[in-house]
Structures are given as structure tokens and as C-alpha cells.
């Protein structure tokens, strides 16, 4: 089947935007032909004034270049004007006598500048300001002349005037009424604007009606109706535009001020549409970009057969594009006897805001000096939103750039509760993966992919990340300065390459230093130990087996600590120990904070004999291992039953004896709410309550005291035991070496740890893992002896 042929008359912003929308819906449905009178590709006409002002180059304002038309298979005729439409035969003719048939035609001829019908308006030096050519003319003119007059103190006139100043000219702006931009601003804002532009060098001639342009072939001046005159070498006409509807003469397409269209941008003739400045919708002809785009969007839907409400008209808003001048207005900013006005006028800060309301709904507004809420105002007017007092206050306040709810959140706080995604995770993936949309965040992190409740927060976070004030940069942290690898990468490499010794690791993975440092040495050893349970760590402490070990002190002597699980001992044990103390003159014996006796100051030569003499299991908690448990024995504040707590301590200690951890792990067990063992400042601490055991994790009683967080309440001893063992093992398996329990909890989140430990299967798996490791280790120890 032959594709339908769509002809677009006009290669400006309205027409091409509509084509783009059509292609978005149906890339291949039409054969598209575009005619444009100007000899250019589609460019952004609005930016012409910024070209004059020097902030944009002509080359940069092209919206669609040749390759775009070619990519989309659009046949473009530039510099060619359609001069005749024959609706009956569905034919067009151009000024180059080209005849083209169409199935559908879109008229997007735009408008042309209105030239004041006064004497002398055809002299050299009278310039319009509409096209690239006009813009170039003005720039050329400024090179030879000094003095220009702009007729028209509206948006375009002022932007042109500012541009002429930039080009080094003297500028007078002539305006018919008392206030400049009187159609877009109220007198207060208008005067503020006038003062500002005057301070920049524009001279205003207000309430002046132009009567005649004087001079010979070229412009020399302008005479007003009041008889006064002003000198000028160039005159820029900026007194408005008129729709280009000449084409409609002699055919039956209905026109009024412009081409009359309905909500679907249809003219009275089937298959002929009009969009943009040449169209008149519900009696209104729009001359701003936003409405043209809105029209284009609706027209595209209609042409592609997509159901829609049609075009409902646009709320007009104006923003002046002059650098350093923020002016905005929208809707009805004048009001009448049924409306109420709120104004905020800060002369010092040069800020003026005026809201016009009816029944607490905004009808219009003028903003000067701070226009950040402009878009929100347009939105509220469109939605007919009833305003709360807080919303009014927010609009009137000077906008605060740092008012982000998300900026004050911790990196560890959850954004997405369903999938447990933290702020940090989103920050990280946005920065490391260059994410720019909410959809990407959703697919990358899963945040907002379930119930969608956090989508507003995710959106805010993304806006915050993309804002100027954002400074929470996340960088890749390497293990230490000896390597470019992160912990994660190191662990992966160790396994992929099956590396088995420190030397091998440093050699194979390109260590930057000879022999590493204390950080990476210990880390590599820990990871090798986790990967290969049989891996034997080099230890500064002396460890032969459970009954033969000691810790070297800084003075070269050794200390040994008989293992008394839970701090429980007996006459027999004490007698053995006492005998050894006596026999070997052990100089110091002390009771530790973890309820053990420690024998200090032992000479290396005596060690073996003492081990033999004592013949008890010894406790070795040197370095990063699970420490002996502090209990609340001896606490005299209460007389609660401490039996269960002791039993638990013994049971847990027996399982975790000699277990290596990423960082020293301290535990406490308290028999009652008096918390005699300081359980809330331990890595793992439990407190007995009426409902069972409260288990706190991630506390610390080091130099920086931290309270533990409540992980769970276990209703039985068995459950508590499983939770403690599961927690320790999961910490061992997933923490980075040297990571304290609270750092690990913050990183993976407490909720995640609960998810794992509350799962009966996973908890069981963890405790089996630990058991297996211990068995393998004990076997190796046994073999060594």
C-alpha cells in the first residue's frame, strides 16, 4: 500500500515540532514533504534575541539539521513558498511552479512582522526582527552606525534593544503607552524593569506615537505625533506580528484573524490542518512557543489516530530573555472586583511578586527578580488548583535552593521500602552508571518498581542529584593505596584466579607496593581464610592448639588465659591454675573485663611447661576474633535469675571460640532490663525481657560510643542462639575486612540482615557454614600436631 503523503507548509518551529511528534508515534506511516520560505533548516527563532545579545551563535540555533531530515526520509524544499492550495484536487503549487499532491496538509506558515503604516517606513535602515536574515542585518548595521531606535516596548522590542546595546549602539525604545511591556506586566513590575534596563543603558521614550520616519534614502530620524523628533541611523520595528494567511486567498479555507481551526487543529476543509501562529483556536491566535508545541502534540495525535481530548487552549506566560533580568508573568494578573491580590514587594532585594486569586485559585501572576516559581504557577493555573495558605507562602517566599527533603537524608536511609533501596545505593548507581531518568533508576536499583509509593521521593532525589547544589559525590574506594582494587573486586579476583597466598595475590594482581601494608596484608589473609578454610594465617600470637596458645606482650613476655566459658570455673580448675602460678612464679594474675583469669609476664621458655601443668583449654581472643562474652554476673543492682543468661553465654562461646571476624566482635548478655552487661553498646548484645531476648547489634563501647540497634526479640533460647550465630556468620561472610559491625549494618541495612536471619532456611544455612568451617579448621589444627 502506498504511504499517505503528508505535506507541511512551513519549515518553522510549529510545523517541524508537529512532524517530530508524528514520527514519535508512527515513524513510518507517512511520506513527508516540507516547504519552507526561508533558506534554512528549522531553527529556534526564540534564540535570535540571545544571538543579538552575544550569548548564542547563529550556528547554534539550528534545531534540525540536514541529517535529521535525511534520517527521517523527509523531503525538504527550502527557499520555496507554497502559493496555492487546491483542496478539491488535493494539490499544492509553489512559487517555483512545482505541483505536489497531498493526502494531508498541515499549514504552518507562521506570521510576519507588522510594519507601521507610516511615512518613510520603506527607507534603508528600517529593519524587522524576525528571521536569521534580520538578525544578520542588525549585526551588520551595528558595525557602521551608532544610534538605533526600537519602536515597540514589548517583549521582542526590549530583547532587541538589549541586543543593540550589546552590539555597542545607543538605543532609544519608543513605546506608545506609559509602561513598557504593558500587555505582560503590571505598572510596578514594568517600572522596575524600566529602571533596570535604563541602568544598563537603554533610553525610553514613552507615550510616543510614531508619525513619520525621516531622512533621505536612509533613515535619519523619527518624528512623533506630538511633533518631537529623535535621531536614528536605524529603526527596528517591533510592534507585533500578523499571521501569514495570504495563501488562503482564493480558496475556501476559512480565515478570521488567522486560519480558523477546531480542537483537533482541523480547518473547515477535510485533511487540511493549521498549527502555530497562523492558526486561530477558539478566537485566540497564539504567538508563543509553548502553545504551538501543545497544538502540535494534539495535531500529531489526531493525525496518527490516537484518541485524545484535543487542544484545549493554553495558559499564556511570558518570560523575558535578557540576561540578569528575571521577569515573568502569566494569566490574568490584573484582576477585577471579584479577585483578590497578594503582593510581596522587597525593594531592597529588588523582588516583586503578585498573585491574583479568585476563590483561592490563582488566575495570574507577575514576578520580578525571582521567577523560579513561574512554572509552578502555570501548572497551578492550568489545574485550577485550590491553594492552601502554605502553598501561597511558598510561592511568595524567596526560593531557597537547598530546600530538598532528600538532601538531609542519610545515605543509609531507605528510599524504597519495598525493595530496601537506600539513598546511598541510588546515589551510587546514578553516579557510577550515569543515570538520568527515574525509569533508569527503577531498572537499575529496583527503587519504585513495586508499589510506586516512593516515586515522588525518587524523582526528588534525581532532581536533587541533577541540581547545582548537589555535592554528595560517591567515589570508588580502594582497599588501600597499595592497589587500585576495591574490596569487592579483590575478593572476586581471588576466587576467579584461585589465588592462594599473599605473595601470589600481590604478584598476580599488580600490587603497587612491595610487600603491601598492614591494611592489605591482614585483609588478604582474612579473605583467603574465608575462601579456603584450610588457609593458615600468620599470627603474631602463638597458637598451636586450643590447649597450647599465648599472646605476646610488648615486653616480649607472654600471657595466657584459661578458657572459662561464661566466666564459670571450679575448684579443680582454680587449683591447677594456682599451682602453676606458684610453681612458675607468674608475676601477674588479673581478672579480665570478660570474666577470665589472665596469667601475665610468662617467659617463652616456661610456656610449654605451664601449658602442660594447667592442661585446660585456653582462650585466644587476640586480634579480630569473636571476643569472650560479658555477662551481668556480679551486678548487684538486682537479684534477677541469671542462670539462663549464663547458659547462653557458655553455649555461644563454645561455638564461636577462635572464630575470626572482619573486626573484633564483642558480645554481652544481660539477664534483665538493668542491662548489667552493657548489651546495648556491644556488637552483639542481648537483654532478657518478659517477652524473650532482645538482641541489639552494631553497638560499640570503644572511643566513640554507639548504641546498638534492636535486631529482634527472640522468644526462646534456641531462637536467640540461632540468631546470634547467624548474625556472626553473615557478618563474617559479607563484611569487608576491618569493617566494624555497625559500619557493615549501615552498608547492607538492618532490614536486609533481618530478612536473611528471619528466614529459617537461610539462618540454618549460615550456621551450617560456620560449623563446617570450624570443623575443617579443627581438623587442620589436629593434623598439624
Amino acid at each position, binding site marked *: 500500500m502506498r504511504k499517505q503523503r503528508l505535506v507541511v507548509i512551513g519549515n518553522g518551529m510549529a510545523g517541524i515540532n508537529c512532524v517530530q511528534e508524528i514520527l514519535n508515534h508512527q515513524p513510518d506511516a507517512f511520506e513527508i514533504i516540507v516547504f519552507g520560505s526561508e533558506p534554512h533548516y528549522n531553527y529556534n527563532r526564540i534564540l535570535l534575541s540571545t544571538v543579538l545579545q552575544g550569548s548564542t551563535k547563529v550556528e547554534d540555533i539550528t534545531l534540525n539539521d540536514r541529517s535529521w531530515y535525511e534520517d527521517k526520509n523527509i523531503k525538504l524544499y527550502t527557499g520555496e513558498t507554497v502559493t496555492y492550495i487546491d483542496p478539491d484536487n488535493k494539490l499544492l503549487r509553489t512559487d517555483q511552479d512545482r505541483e505536489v499532491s497531498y493526502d494531508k496538509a498541515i499549514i504552518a506558515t507562521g506570521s510576519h512582522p507588522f510594519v507601521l503604516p507610516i511615512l518613510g517606513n520603506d527607507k534603508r535602515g528600517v529593519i524587522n526582527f524576525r528571521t536569521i536574515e534580520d538578525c544578520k542585518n542588525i549585526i551588520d548595521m551595528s558595525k557602521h552606525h551608532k544610534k538605533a531606535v526600537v519602536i515597540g516596548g514589548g517583549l521582542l522590542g526590549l530583547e532587541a534593544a538589549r541586543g543593540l546595546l550589546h552590539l555597542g549602539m545607543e538605543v532609544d525604545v519608543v513605546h506608545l503607552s506609559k509602561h513598557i511591556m504593558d500587555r505582560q506586566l503590571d505598572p510596578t513590575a514594568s517600572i522596575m524593569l524600566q529602571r533596570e534596563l535604563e541602568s544598563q543603558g537603554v533610553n525610553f521614550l514613552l507615550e510616543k506615537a510614531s508619525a513619520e520616519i525621516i531622512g533621505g534614502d536612509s533613515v535619519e530620524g523619527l518624528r512623533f505625533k506630538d511633533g518631537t523628533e529623535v535621531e536614528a541611523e536605524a529603526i527596528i520595528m517591533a510592534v507585533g506580528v500578523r499571521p501569514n494567511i495570504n495563501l488562503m486567498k482564493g480558496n475556501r479555507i476559512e480565515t478570521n484573524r488567522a486560519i480558523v481551526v477546531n480542537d483537533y487543529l482541523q480547518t473547515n476543509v477535510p485533511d487540511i490542518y493549521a498549527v502555530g501562529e497562523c492558526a486561530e483556536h477558539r478566537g485566540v491566535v497564539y504567538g508563543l512557543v509553548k502553545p504551538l508545541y501543545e497544538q502540535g502534540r494534539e495535531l500529531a495525535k489526531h493525525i496518527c489516530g490516537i484518541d485524545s481530548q484535543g487542544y484545549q487552549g493554553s495558559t499564556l506566560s511570558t518570560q523575558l530573555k535578557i540576561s540578569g533580568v528575571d521577569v515573568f508573568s502569566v494569566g490574568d494578573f490584573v484582576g477585577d472586583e471579584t479577585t483578590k491580590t497578594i503582593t510581596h514587594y522587597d525593594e531592597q532585594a529588588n523582588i516583586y511578586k503578585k498573585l491574583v486569586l479568585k476563590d483561592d485559585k490563582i488566575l495570574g501572576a507577575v514576578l520580578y527578580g525571582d521567577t523560579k516559581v513561574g512554572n509552578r504557577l502555570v501548572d497551578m493555573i492550568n489545574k485550577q*488548583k485550590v491553594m492552601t495558605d502554605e502553598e501561597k507562602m511558598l510561592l511568595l517566599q524567596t526560593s531557597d535552593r537547598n530546600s530538598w527533603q532528600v538532601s538531609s537524608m542519610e545515605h543509609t536511609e531507605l528510599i524504597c521500602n519495598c525493595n530496601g533501596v537506600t539513598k546511598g545505593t541510588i546515589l551510587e548507581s546514578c553516579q557510577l552508571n550515569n543515570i538520568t531518568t527515574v525509569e533508569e533508576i527503577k531498572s537499575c536499583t529496583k527503587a519504585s518498581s*513495586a*508499589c510506586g509509593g516512593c*516515586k515522588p521521593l525518587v524523582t526528588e532525589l534525581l532532581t536533587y542529584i541533577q541540581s547545582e547544589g548537589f555535592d554528595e559525590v560517591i567515589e570508588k574506594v580502594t582497599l588501600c593505596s597499595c592497589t587500585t582494587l576495591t574490596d569487592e573486586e579483590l575478593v572476586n579476583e581471588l576466587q576467579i584466579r584461585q589465588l592462594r597466598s599473599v605473595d601470589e595475590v600481590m604478584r598476580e594482581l599488580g600490587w603497587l607496593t612491595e610487600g603491601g601494608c598492614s591494611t592489605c596484608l591482614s585483609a588478604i589473609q582474612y579473605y583467603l581464610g574465608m*575462601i579456603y578454610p584450610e588457609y593458615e594465617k600468620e599470627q603474631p600470637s602463638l597458637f598451636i592448639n586450643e590447649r597450647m596458645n599465648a599472646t605476646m606482650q610488648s615486653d616480649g613476655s607472654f600471657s595466657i588465659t584459661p578458657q572459662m566459658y561464661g566466666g564459670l570455673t571450679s575448684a579443680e580448675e582454680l587449683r591447677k591454675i594456682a599451682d602453676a602460678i606458684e610453681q612458675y612464679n607468674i608475676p601477674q594474675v588479673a581478672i579480665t573485663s570478660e570474666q577470665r583469669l589472665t596469667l601475665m609476664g610468662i617467659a617463652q621458655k616456661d610456656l610449654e611447661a605451664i601449658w602442660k601443668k594447667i592442661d585446660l583449654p585456653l582462650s585466644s581472643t587476640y586480634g579480630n576474633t569473636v571476643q569472650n562474652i560479658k555477662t551481668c554476673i556480679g551486678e548487684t543492682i538486682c537479684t534477677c535469675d541469671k542462670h539462663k543468661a549464663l547458659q547462653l553465654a557458655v553455649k555461644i562461646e563454645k561455638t564461636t571460640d577462635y572464630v575470626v571476624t572482619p573486626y573484633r566482635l564483642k558480645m554481652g548478655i544481660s539477664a534483665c*532490663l538493668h542491662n548489667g552487661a552493657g548489651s546495648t553498646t556491644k556488637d552483639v548484645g542481648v537483654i532478657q525481657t518478659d517477652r524473650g531476648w532482645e538482641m541489639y547489634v552494631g553497638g560499640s563501647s570503644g572511643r566513640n560510643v554507639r548504641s546498638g540497634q*534492636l535486631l529482634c*526479640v527472640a522468644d526462646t533460647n534456641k531462637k536467640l542462639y540461632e540468631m546470634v550465630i547467624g548474625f556472626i556468620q*553473615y557478618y563474617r561472610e559479607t563484611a569487608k575486612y576491618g569493617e566494624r559491625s555497625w559500619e557493615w549494618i549501615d552498608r547492607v541495612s538492618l532490614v536486609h540482615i533481618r530478612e536473611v536471619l528471619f528466614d*529459617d532456611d537461610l539462618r540454618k544455612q549460615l550456621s551450617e557454614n560456620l560449623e563446617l568451617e570450624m570443623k575443617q579448621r579443627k581438623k587442620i589444627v589436629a593434623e598439624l600436631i
Partner: protein
Amino acid sequence: MTEMLLRYFRKKQKETQTEKIYDTQCPFCSMQCKMQLIEQSTVTRKRYQTIAKDNPTSEGRICIKGLHAHQHAIHGDRIKHPLLKVNGEFQKISWEEAIQLIKEKFTEIQSLHGNDTLSVYGSATITNEEAYLLGKFARVALKTRYIDYNGRLCMSSAASAATQTFGMDRGFTNSIQEIPQTRCMILAGTNIAECQPTIMPYFERAKENGCFIIAIDPRETATTKLADLHLKVKPGMDAALANGLLKVIIEEELIDQSFLERRVDGFSEVKEYIASIDLEEIAELTGVPSEKIVKAATVFGKEESGMIFTARGVEQQTDGSIAVRNFLNILLATGKIGKPFSGFGAVTGQGNGQGAREHGQKADQLPGYRSIENQEHRRYIADVWGIGKEDLPHKGVSAFEMIEKMDEGEIKGLFLMCSNPVVSNPSAAFVKQALKKLDFFVAVDLFVSETARLADLILPATSYLETPGTMTNVEGRVTLREASFPLWGEAKHDWKILCEVAKALGKGDYFSFDSPEEIFEELREATRGGLADYSGITYDRLRQEEGILWPCPDEDHPGTIRLFEHQFAHLNGKAKMIAVSNKPEVEKEKPTEDFPLYLTTGRVMSHYLTGVQTRKSPTLAAREFESYMEIHPATAEKYQIKDQTLVKIESERGSIVVRSKRSEAIRKDTVFVPFHWADSQNVNQLISKKLDPTCKMPGFKVSAVKISPVE
């Protein structure tokens, strides 16, 4: 399924070997989100993942509960066999023994004490088919008048209010798709953000479109954050607040006079009563400043469309029914019903809260929302069931009243299906005491729930993954939940259990069903011509049309999207307004010297009802593993309650111990405790036995309590 983080490869799972996909629907709230469970089997274990499916109501969203719903269904604690209590311990017995025992015990009780000494307690979480069959089971197999269900504690206020005002009770009078277009809405006592998370985008879209949202709640919640105006009402004062709104609407002439004249009875009485009240007095009573009442009423009155949503905050009160009616008064006065973007929504809590209240589980009701005391209705249903009209028992009493009758010894046997009344009813200690007095108590459940612990016999039921059937969602949309997951152990479907017990009792002919669809076919007949008419709905249509909004009186009928466009369901076609006094008929508790604070209760997002299922799910429990008490910091200081410490809360009925959570979001005179936990954390222990005189709803949302730190 929660997966562990894995740093060390040797622990990684083997590759997936097979994959199975099960179509299902979330077993929890009234949104009934469609989803699929994907089962991946490896050599060593099975892994599960849930994904959302597009559908007209949840639009392809699911919340955290849905994502992890399967966790309880495959939990090791699920009962696999019938369990009989012998010397205080449960022992496994066979189904034959179990059914035989029920037969003997039920027969014995009834022959000794009469038919009405047996009772049936049902649920709003079971399917329509099962709800229907349970009602028939009570009346035909057991011939008892005593049947009621847990919906009494949930939806009865809104149901009775809509019935009395409109003549008909369907959760939403409009389709859910209309919400984003409404111009103003009142969310009265509803925390949808926590309770029905997947509905939120409809409300967010409304807000984006410029809708002015008014929230009424004693607490700031994720829902009130959405609101433009939050009326932080004193607990229990909703009816009075509605009077304040009505007063402004009437006096500012924001009423729709022509609508009132054409379609409403009773406006003049309301107007007269409203004239007698004083707005400042209302402000004083409700704790809401009069300017805010004026603003809310003015916006609602002036905007061209508006909707009101109520939920348990207004409804779980001893004046719940009349309070909801007062909100309906506002809709009627402003003419905002029966047209696009204007209407009422009772945000049903339970999964089948709507369907389960339509088909005869209620004490006074027969299928199709028929009345058990209406002669014509009795005759119709008796005919469908093939029994004599005179053999159909008359109406019984409400759920809590049944428990009172157990305590009094009038009811001696109980058949409990899918409910946990020991945790969900007020005065839990009393409920326990009553259940313990029963001669014979059968519980049908997935787990040994707090209530099942008291049973003589527990029968293992199937989960949502295993039982297909229809569920009627929050809108009133009938949906078909597919289910094909293998049955758990020896568990049986609820409907199958009912059929087998009925057969043992000699009523097998009335219960000869082989599939839920067969039951549904009978349900269609039974509802034909009733208010909740399902007769035009078939399983095939439900599959093709992704759900149908009732009433749907014939197979060519598309279902009813919007109710009351031309007339209301009362005989004269008009709606009924009623003047609602600021002073409720049953007086509510107020803070006293001994019990100086209000207590109110509610849900949290990660749990559902009494938590029997959600507490079993590791992922859900990980988010909230215990109860808590939300308290204003200033109040906490006053009572020396530190943050995150145990606190004892006492009312005249009992005491509980939970952890404190300081929050500025709550009124200073009120504390809040969620209700998903049992035993020493069961907040319902503190609730009074007083009931709403109309619908017999207990007053869960207001009690007077005192608090003290636990040392």
C-alpha cells in the same frame, strides 16, 4: 524470596534447572493485585520470585506484601495434617478420623442442646465461593442461625451506612479510574498509603491534576502527607466534624438544591439540626480549628466534582455506621454522587471484604445481599437451595455477640474458618475465656494461630496459591484468582472441607461440588435479582474481561461502572439523609484522670490483619517485627517514656507492653498502636466490648488508656 549477599562463590547456588509460573492474586488487601509466582528449581532448593501483572485496578503494581506473600504459604510452620488436641497437645490424625469426629461432636451437641448451639465464624479473606458455601453450610448443613464473620469488625459500618443511605452497598460507587479526575476529595480515617499502597498512584495523579485533598486523621501519615489540608481530629469525633462541614456547606449555600429536591429524602431534618449547632462548639469538640473546617467545606462545596473516602478510622467506632452516614450527607447535600468523578468510596480492608459481605456469611443476610428476614428473599434462596422456606433459620447475631453467647454457654460448638478472633476481637482475654468454654471447637487454618491453639481440632486449609476462586475487590469488581500451586501436605480447600463435613452430616446432596466454578454457577443463580447480582458473570468472562463490576444481571450486561446515575436503590429511588447528633448513642470513652490518653489503632504497610501470615514472612517481619506505641515527644516527656523503650499501656480491660516510638506526627492527647501482634502485644486486649447499635462494630479506634515505662 530474600537472597543473601554472596561474596564467596563456593556458596553460590547452582544454575536454575526448571522454572514454573503460577498465576495468582495477592492474598492480602482489597486491591487484589494480580501477580505471578515464578518458581525456579535448582538441584538443592527452590527459589521464588513474584512479579506484578497488569490489570485494570492495580495497573501492574504490587506492594511489599504482595512481593513476599508466598513466604508464608511455603513456610515450614504450615499445618500438613488434621491435628487433634489430646491432653493439651496437638496430634496428627487422618482426615477420615477428623471428619468422623466432627460428625459425632456436632450431632451430639445439637441433639442434646438444639441446632442453634452450633456456630460458624467466617472470614472476609476467603473467596466468594467459599463465603457463599459457608453461609449455606451453616443454614443447610448445620441448620443453625449463628453465623457471622470477621468482616463485622471491618466493613460493617460502611456497609450498613451505604445500605441505609443509598439502599445498596458497593465499596466504590464509581470506578477507580475516575479518581484522578476528581477536583476535591475527603479522605476520612483512611491510611491508604500503608493499607492499600498500590491505590496511591490514583490519588497522586488526582493531586497532580489539581485535586484539593482533605485528610481527616488524628495522626500524620504517609496518606495525610499527600493532603492539601489535614484536619487532625480528636479520635472518635468524625461525626461531629462532618456536622461542622455540613454546617458551612448549608449556610454558605454550597448545596445542590435541585439534586436534593429530586433525589434525596430527609434534607430538611438535617438542615434543622445543623442550624441548632455552633461551629465553634464543633471546633472545640473535634479539636479542629473552625477556619480549617470552613476551608475544607468551602472547597468541597465549590468544586464541580468531589469524592469522599472513608475507612476504619471513621468506621471502627461505636458510632461508625452513623458517622459514615454523616459523610454521605455531605455528598448528597452537594449533589456529588451518581455522576462522573463524584461519589463515595469505602476503602475495604480485607482481600474479599466486599464479596464476603454479599453472599450470606452475615448473621442477617442471604446471597446476593438479600435479607434473611424478607419473606420473598427467603423463598427465593430456599428454592435455589432446594429446601423448604421454613427450614431456613432466621437471623443470628453479630460476631462479638456470638462470642458472648459462647461465654454464656448458649453456643457450645464452633466451626471457625480462616479467622483469628482471639487477636482481632475486642477484650481478647474475654474472647479466650469464652472459646475455652466451648464443648467442641474446630478451626480451619494454615497455621496454629493464636485462636487455633484453643481449638479441639485443627483442619489444614490451602493457601491463596492453591485455591482458585473469585474475589470482589475494593471497587466492587469481581475478579478471578487462578491457582494451581500443589497442595501443601494433606491440606484441603475450604470448600472441599465444607462439602465433606456436610456429606458426613447427611447433607451431601446439597454440597456435591467438584470445583469452585460449580459453586460459582450456583452462586450466580442465588444472586440473580438481588442487589449484588452476579448472575451475568462467568469464569470465562472474568478471564476475558479482567474482572466485572457488579451488578451484572445477564451475560450480555457489561457490568455497572457507576452507580446511582439515575436513581438510588431504595424503593422510591431516593437517597436518605439523616440528622446525626454530635453526641453518639453509645457514649465513647474519654480520657479521665486514671486513663488520661486516647488510644487509637491501625495497620502498618508490611502486615495484614492479625499477622498470622505476614508475621511468618521474613521479609515482612524484617520491616516491623514487633508492635509499638507512637507517642508525641511532649507527651512522652510528661510520662517519662524514653524513645525505643518498653512501655506498659493499660485500659480498664487489660494491659500490653510494647516499644515506644516518639513522633511529632501524632496528637499530644493520643497514642497509636498497630494491631498485627498477639499475646502481650495485642492492642485489642485494651478495647471495650461496647458495640455500634446499628452494625455491631466494636469501637477499636478510641479507648482511654494510661501508660508507664517498664523498668
